[in-house]
């Protein structure tokens, strides 16, 4: 373990960490668009939160059944100066493609669902591959 800690990382100094990359990806691909999409408020839909934050819930990527790397994340929201409401959005970001998926019920959908696109759930995404025996 002591010897391993001296092995240099494969990541370069300029490359953002996995957590930073995921945060930026979710902010640019999800939160920014959600803010832009917030329209009129004369509706029974929930008012847009005053603040959102991204939490990357795993520092290392996970591989799905098709051997693609993804990083799970959560979006917390806050109304006024109250407490943070955790896990308002739960999803994952795919490292290679940058694709974002969000969880609704038990299924994962492309993040475009949150922008009003009619999309079907995609089986197997954001779910770790089962350990081979």
């Amino acid at each position, binding site marked *: 373990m002591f010897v391993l800690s001296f092995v240099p990382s494969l990541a370069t100094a300029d490359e953002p960490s996995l957590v930073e990359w995921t945060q930026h990806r979710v902010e640019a691909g999800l939160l920014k668009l959600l803010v832009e*999409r917030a*329209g*009129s*408020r*004369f*509706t*029974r*839909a*929930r*008012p847009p939160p005053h603040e959102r934050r991204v939490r990357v819930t795993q520092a290392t990527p996970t591989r799905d059944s098709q051997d693609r790397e993804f990083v799970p994340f959560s979006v917390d929201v806050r*109304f*006024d*100066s*109250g407490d943070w409401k955790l896990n308002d959005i739960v999803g994952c970001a795919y490292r290679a493609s940058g694709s974002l998926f969000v969880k*609704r*019920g038990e*299924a994962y959908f492309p993040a475009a*669902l*949150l922008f*009003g*696109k*009619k999309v079907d759930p995609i089986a197997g995404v954001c779910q770790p591959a089962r350990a081979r025996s």
Partner: protein
Amino acid sequence: MRQALNHWARRGFFVAMGLGSALITRMSLPYFDLETLPPFVIEKLPLRFESLWLAALRLHVAAAALTFPLCLALMTRALQRRVTWHRWLGRVSGGLLLLALVPSGVVLAFDAKGGRVVTAGFVLSGAIVAAATVVGVQAARRRDLIAHAHAMRHVVGQMSVAVVSRALIVGLDSVGLDPDLAYVVALWGPVLASVAAVEVLSRRPPIWHRNRIALVERIFRESSALALVVRVRALFRAVAGDGR
């Protein structure tokens, strides 16, 4: 002074509800775009019976867009004087209320966010609308216009919840109330307040002593004008009949 205040309060209510109804209709147009999902729908996913829920939502929105302005118009003196118009538009509104608005609202209520408390609020409001419509129609059929007006005020009162509730959601959000709690308050508050307001207004004696003379004069004036129109029509019909 009090009469003038009542007059302007009544006008203000009708104008505010008319504008609110138009705004809700405008905001609800995306529900009819079959390619996209509006935020109100997205936040409810996944739904147990999504197709049924979406169909009920569209029916509810379309029925409300028609019936609320119609009910407001039916409450105006101008339309109440035109008895035939009032009767037919009343039948259309009553039919839409009982066959489209209330049943679709009940379907939507069972998937309302906020759980059973909110479901109960929507179901209660729908039950008041349905019961008041039936009672109001029965009263009109036996020519009991005071009971008819009382019942129809309850219908309009519950329909006004749609506007007041949305305004409250915006207002409570601006003061920083938790949106989940605000949603419950913004539903139950107007539902109960509407019932109370209608009952308080109906408890007032139908004819105030101070206004009795003015009322009699107005009825005389209106009935005289009506009688004049009838006489003129009868005259023209007689002339037209002779000309054939």
